[in-house]
């Protein structure tokens, strides 16, 4: 793939994302036309905006935070997916392989049980997601042999433990109030996301994204065998830890903000590979944009498809899996 062609794809995808953002601002149960939107934007620029206006409220306090969150989380999960697939040398891997989702889900449930406060639940999800990955790393690291396989096994062990703990918490939760609340939280939703949530999620995800972006070319070598990469002068352990840290921070933040969202980290890297090929230097930027488009699109469907909201995790897989299946069938998976 020529560099100019790659730039062109990036520009096209960015334009698609921007158009999608603008469209997402206008569509929804409360109708706002594009003309209204642009006149509102004009008001913002000239500092004449009043939040008393219902339209302004819907756009800037309801839809905008939700859209921004979808884009940030989608981009983050996509980049985390690319990073994880590279260090595990396997295109089937997603960020949850190290147990971060299982740990964070347990954190959510525990948080709801202890004190039903949104901030506290977010905090618990984030912390337990990180704890799970640290455990995985400690179990997997303590061996001389191929550490990637050890990490995968450790991830399975830790995920199993936290999944059981989640069931335990669910079992002891109040059936009428707490249990439904745990289940709905885990199904995932971006409804009710506020601007403060966006601010909270932005820094950890943006920082991790920058880190992954800067290491994007080095990911190519990390997907070779460890010795081969070492012999190319690469500090394999250091890069691996940095990538695990950034992917974990992204995934834990994602679960804490919008529940368990599967599939984004697994399939967006593949869509990216279909467009720009396997070179991670180009794949990371393209996947970041595609991840944003993908999750925003899915969230729009969540809002619009049915009279009440559909949980996010249902549609990421329900739409993502068949689309991926069709692509796989059509191309025979030759992009990998």
């Amino acid at each position: 793939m020529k560099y100019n062609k790659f730039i062109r794809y990036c520009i096209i995808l960015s334009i698609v994302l921007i158009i999608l953002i603008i469209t997402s601002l206008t569509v929804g149960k409360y109708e706002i036309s594009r003309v209204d939107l642009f006149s509102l934007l004009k008001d913002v620029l000239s500092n004449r905006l009043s939040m008393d206006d219902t339209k302004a409220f819907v756009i800037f306090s309801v839809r905008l935070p939700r859209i921004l969150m979808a884009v940030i989380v989608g981009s983050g999960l996509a980049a985390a997916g690319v990073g994880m697939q590279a260090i595990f040398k396997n295109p089937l891997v997603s960020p949850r392989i190290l147990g971060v989702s299982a740990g964070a889900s347990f954190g959510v449930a525990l948080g709801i049980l202890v004190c039903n406060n949104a901030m506290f639940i977010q905090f618990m999800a984030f912390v337990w997601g990180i704890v799970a990955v640290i455990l995985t790393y400690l179990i997997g690291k303590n061996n001389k042999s191929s550490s990637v396989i050890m990490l995968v096994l450790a991830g399975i062990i830790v995920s199993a433990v936290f999944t059981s703990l989640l069931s335990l918490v669910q079992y002891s939760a109040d059936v009428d109030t707490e249990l439904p609340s745990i289940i709905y939280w885990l199904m995932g939703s971006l409804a009710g996301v506020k601007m403060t949530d966006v601010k909270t999620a932005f820094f950890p995800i943006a920082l991790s994204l920058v880190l992954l972006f800067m290491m994007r070319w080095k990911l190519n070598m990390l997907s070779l065998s460890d010795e081969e990469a070492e012999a190319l002068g690469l500090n394999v352990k250091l890069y691996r830890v940095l990538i695990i840290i950034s992917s974990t921070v992204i995934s834990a933040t994602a679960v804490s903000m919008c529940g368990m969202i599967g599939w984004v980290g697994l399939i967006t890297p593949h869509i990216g590979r279909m467009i720009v090929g396997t070179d991670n230097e180009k794949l990371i930027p393209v996947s970041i944009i595609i991840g944003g488009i993908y999750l925003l699109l899915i969230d729009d469907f969540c809002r619009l498809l049915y009279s009440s909201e559909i949980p996010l995790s249902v549609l990421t897989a329900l739409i993502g899996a068949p689309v991926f299946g069709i692509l796989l069938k059509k191309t025979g998976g030759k992009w990998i």
Partner: protein
Amino acid sequence: MIFEVKEGYFNYNDSPVLKNINIMIKKGELMTILGPNGVGKTTLVKCMLGFLKWENGDTLINGYSIKTFSRNDLWKKIGYVPQMKTLPFSYTVESLVLMGRNPYINFFSKPAKEDYYCVDKILKTFRLEHLKNKPINKLSGGEIQMILIARALVADPELLILDEPELNLDLANQVKIFEILAQLVNSKGISCIINTHHPINAVRYGQKSLLLMKNYHYLYGDTKDILNRENLSKTFGLSEEWFNFKIS
């Protein structure tokens, strides 16, 4: 450059694998390592390069321990060609060869124009430009091996270490690989250490040979002294007559 192993010992789970290995190879020499399966050839290569730690002894470059070199400095001097295997992601030939430039590229950086230029140059010398944009998993075994050698050479090393470069290659391709290596040794003064299973290639192209035998014995010296019928038959457990064969 002078590459040495001094008094190298290595144990695996407390049972010794390598004992008192002493070798030295000078600029422009081609050395082959031969021996039966399981005798520790690959282990020796891994120890030499620091992937496995010597229990005792050390690897030296120009008299200095390889531990004293920074990662980048070390891998600018040494190019390693691993055994060929399928990659999980099928990078293009250009991407793969570009990885060889990594010792010249900073921690958070990516290749610059100059690196791409080096890749083009090395592909041209190998007459492989036409493969530049092909995915690596679509190439033949011989082509992949050439690409792996090109990747090691693109960092401009003084020593090349190859782990069974003739693996899965037909006779013609084996000859091609060894001819290229011999030419690098002769014209550019690059030293080569080659792990091989084929005494014929070793005798034909090597100046120095290391014959690893069971029970931690080994023979090291000029190929013509080491790779004779007696030593080979002893090492591989074959009768001396076996080596008499001629093709009519």
